[in-house]
């Protein structure tokens, strides 16, 4: 079994083992889950390292497994491989999954099922990022919904059922469109195939109408996942109701699957349609940036604020994707995906830390807790600064690259408007920081709060380090991706 298969199947094996442990033995379950998400994490680190030194020079798929026949009568294959855009995503998935599992140690309700679902979720995420067969991709894409549904629906907040069903149905609704597009692609290819690499070669030959239909259908499916405005309303609900670690995974990995899929599948497959629609995609991106920021500003719930800021931040990704002819923009999009995963993941973890202690997330109820929780506050301010794009942190690198790239490739006024997001971002982040951490302290009410503990620090510090590292020295990441991105840009320019 190759390394990519093992990334998929080790968490799955972990799930089976967790299910075999008696449910009273909570510590055994927690540690088993940690180990079985720790192994893929280390593997993904190694993979990134190895890819960087041995494969990043070319755009060819690395660590290819298959294609093995899976359903021979339909020519469906088990076909895995990674390149410069999937490796960073695997890194992010491996890291965030393990950190989230550590952050879930506080879960005390139906522990066994929780961790089993979590490991299944990891299997699905890993699968999406390594599949090169469209059908296989679809299977993993759908598999993830099930554990996610239960994780939100069982362990969530007061409106968990509503949020879980909404998330599930909304994504499923999008998947139908993907399925139709898959079928169209399957039947128009000769011989019938769902091999993505082959499809990317052949599908630009399709008629313009057919390209448009497939592109739009795939766009709907992926846009719901991103989520692109106006398909975003499942996100605040799911984020707010989900338990902390699940929010982290949602923001850190799941949203990226949408943009990843665009970049991997629909963008290079249908360059004609892309050209026709790129302006409107950019408009959607700019709307998301401004709209998400404005709505964030009006939030009263800490977690919802972070959720809406995700809408805004993913808007930058869409803007970058619309500027598909610019290497800077596309690289900026990748950077934004990673940096948003790190920063927003951390923000959700931190909000969870506060919620565990205060049992509320109402911004107005806090104030001045900075003097009581100095370390926690320091970290929170750090990530707020990262989220508002302060230089030296990863968010700045991505935003700046996106602006530069999009400015050259798209309507300048449109991009100029999107820069407003920078001010609005500062406004809602600083308002939050001020209302929660600064100002007079209510000793009576919050005197009992304790500062962040070691386990929570362990989950957050790696994200801080990476945020700084990418912000200070983005070069390794750009060189890891550059060959792949160049190839992608040539494909999209066809």
């Amino acid at each position, binding site marked *: 079994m190759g390394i990519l298969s093992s990334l998929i199947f080790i968490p799955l094996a972990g799930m089976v083992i967790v299910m075999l442990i008696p449910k009273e033995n909570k510590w055994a379950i927690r540690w088993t889950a940690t180990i079985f998400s720790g192994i893929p994490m280390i593997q993904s680190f190694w993979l990134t390292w190895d890819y960087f030194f041995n494969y990043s020079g070319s755009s060819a798929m690395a660590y290819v497994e298959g294609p093995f026949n899976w359903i021979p009568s339909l020519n469906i294959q088990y076909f895995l491989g990674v390149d410069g855009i999937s490796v960073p995503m695997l890194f992010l998935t491996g890291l965030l999954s393990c950190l989230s599992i550590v952050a879930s140690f506080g879960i005390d309700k139906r522990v066994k099922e929780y961790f089993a679902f979590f490991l299944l979720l990891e299997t699905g995420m890993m699968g999406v990022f390594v599949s090169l067969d469209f059908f296989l991709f679809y299977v993993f894409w759908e598999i993830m919904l099930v554990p996610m549904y239960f994780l939100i629906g069982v362990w969530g907040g007061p409106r968990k059922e509503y949020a879980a069903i909404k998330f599930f149905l909304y994504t499923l609704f999008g998947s139908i469109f993907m399925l139709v597009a898959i079928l169209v692609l399957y039947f128009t290819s000769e011989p019938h195939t769902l091999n993505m690499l082959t499809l990317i070669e052949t599908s630009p030959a399709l008629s313009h109408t057919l390209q448009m239909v497939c592109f739009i259908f795939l766009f709907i499916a992926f846009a719901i996942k991103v989520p692109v405005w106006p398909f975003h309303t499942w996100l605040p609900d799911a984020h707010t109701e989900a338990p902390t670690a699940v929010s982290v995974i949602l923001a850190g990995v799941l949203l990226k699957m949408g943009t990843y899929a665009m970049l991997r599948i629909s963008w290079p497959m249908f360059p004609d349609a892309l050209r026709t629609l790129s302006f409107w995609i950019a408009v959607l991106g700019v709307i998301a940036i401004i709209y998400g920021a404005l709505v964030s500003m*009006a939030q009263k719930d800490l977690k919802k604020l972070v959720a809406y800021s995700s809408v805004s931040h993913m808007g930058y990704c869409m803007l970058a994707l619309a500027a598909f002819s610019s*290497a800077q923009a596309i690289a900026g999009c990748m950077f934004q995906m990673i940096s948003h995963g790190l920063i927003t993941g951390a923000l959700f973890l931190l909000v969870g830390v506060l919620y565990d202690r205060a049992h509320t997330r109402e911004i107005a109820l806090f104030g001045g807790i900075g003097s009581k929780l100095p370390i926690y506050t320091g970290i929170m301010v750090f990530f707020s600064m990262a989220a508002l794009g302060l230089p030296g942190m990863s968010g700045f690198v991505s935003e700046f690259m996106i602006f530069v790239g999009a400015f050259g490739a798209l309507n300048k006024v449109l991009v100029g408007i999107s820069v407003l997001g920078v001010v609005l971002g500062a406004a809602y982040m*600083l308002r939050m920081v001020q209302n929660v951490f600064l100002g007079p302290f209510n000793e009576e009410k919050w005197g009992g709060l304790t500062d962040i503990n070691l386990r929570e620090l362990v989950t957050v510090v790696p994200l801080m380090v990476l945020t700084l590292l990418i912000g200070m020295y983005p070069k390794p990441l750009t060189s890891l991706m550059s060959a792949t991105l160049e190839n992608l840009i040539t494909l999209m320019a066809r």
Partner: protein
Amino acid sequence: MTEHAYLIPLLPLFAFVMVVFFLRWKEPLAAGFSIAMILCTWVMSIWVLIETLARHGEPYEFFFYITSFASLNFEIGILVDPLTAMMLIVVTTVGSCVQIYSLGYMKGDPKFSRFFAYLSLFCFSMLGLVLANNFFMIFIFWELVGLTSYLLIGFWSEKKVAADAGKKAFITTRIGDLGFIVGLLLVAAYCGTFNYGEVFDKIGAGVMPLGVLTMAAIFLFCGAVGKSAQFPLHVWLPDAMEGPTPVSALIHAATMVAAGVYLVARFMNVFIGSADASMVVAVIGIITSVLAASIALVQNDIKRVLAYSTVSQLGYMIMALGLYGYDTAQGHHSAGYVAGTLHLMTHAFFKGLLFLGAGSVIHAVHTNDIQEMGGLFRKMKATSITFMIASLSIAGIFPLSGFWSKDEIVVATSHHPIFMVLTLTVAFMTAFYMWRLCFLTFFGEPRDAERYEHAHESPKSMTGPLIVLGVLSVVAGWVALPWLHHGFSSFVYHGEVHHAGPNYLLMLISTVVAVSGIVLAWLVYHKKAISADALAEKFRPIHTLLYNKYYFDELYDLILIRPILAFGRFWWSFDARVVDGMVNGTGRATILWSDLKEWFDVHIVDGAVNGCGWVVNQAASKLKYLQTGAVQFYALFMLLMIVAVALFKFEMTRVATTWPVLTAIFFSGVVLLGLLVRQTANKKKTADVLESDK
């Protein structure tokens, strides 16, 4: 040394890291280390200046790292030219004085070490900004300066006003940065590089059409408007006085706000390409200057007066640079560049001194309100004398440093009469409000006896820096004596060296203006020959307007902040009601649709199925009576059927006539049957009844 100039920003950064991670718990060590580092950078800056002088101002550029990404170069490098060398001296001198001063001022503060860490971080950012050799790098440090000022203004974050002021500063300057970013994007899009030299060459070669260049220049200037607190983004600076006083001195008087002026000076090549953009710069500068000086006339908070004074002086510098750009674009010589940069330096010293002096006063009397002070000269000799030196300097009294730089600015306006009149008006107002401050604070009778009783001179660590800055406030301007042929104007200059000789007439005019301002202040506030209250009463509307700072804060609150917040809430409810409403509506519609289908299913589809069953059931329940067991009945039935079949068989062809017959027979048969059935049923019933009777 110049080749190691990168160490200049790195040492304070090192101090920051050391203090935060290792020395935090040992307060004296933390402060000592931080001060040692800034003193090192001060020595190095002097060394760099000497070397730059020895090179005759030849720029020295050094690249550490260049990475090209998709045909756009990102660099890390340093550029040391006379402007940089001058700024290094300014930042490190004021920085050192402020850090030493803070030893005394911040003594006993629970966040003492952190204060020094932030100061070091600020010095790092500011020095990096000054040394940067490209647009991208200067923007990075620019933002870091914003961050540190946020941290320092809101240092006493338990105070709501302080936290508010920090937030306001950060967001307001970010509005300016918005323009800065767009300017950068234009530069990148048209020039394909961020390096100063390359960009300026390309702009010189005309890669940007004039319209774009004008826009780029104005957008870049937006950054300066934010950081240097120019109209209309000046509102954050006076509020920033909520930070500890050394911070006000360092950031909001001497260095950070100077960054905007530095930016305009540094990007001068962009501005000289566009006379329109330069005129915008100059106009914004003079508007700011007049506006702020007029507000300063009536304020009672010692730090606020100084804050508005800073805004006003920054407007001077910006105006001078703008006029330089305009005149140069028109092909004239101008003293504006030299004037702006010289005033940047001299102002840093005397304004730093004024703030530190104000801090010393506040430290002694524990109030900011000058109406509660008075007579402090007798108690605080060193503070008073240095403060008054700085006041003379800022008022422009010969031969203090402010005189020379202000004189240059007046010279720079010589082609623009309106600007000159306004400049002199501001000079008059400056002299007046500064000496109003001096008279109210240091002279006359104490207006608050209790505060006066407890007042005392500050410790040596605080007066020491005052004296150093006092000396600099006197002598710093001498580098630009108009009789010097190799003075400041042949060191820091732009384009060609242009040395104009002394203009005695202008010197005389500006001296007269300054002295009359001081005299008026003396008459009003010391001699009391004119009653200040009566004046205020006479000009009540104007006084109210000025006292309330032209209501800018209220205006912005009304036309910007509230609408934006309301806008946010509006879009939120839009999101919940309309966007999410559509999603939920789709969900509800689906449920409704399936309810409808369920009804259809239950009543129509299943109804049909059940209906069939019902019909069969009903039919069976009636027809069962045919099974009577009476043989005659069966025989009759058979007969009828035989007849029917026979008729049907043989008369097939004659359908038209046969059917009625057939039908008649059939129905008569049925009727017959019915009768029979009834009869038998009755029989059976009676039989049943009889049976049950038994």
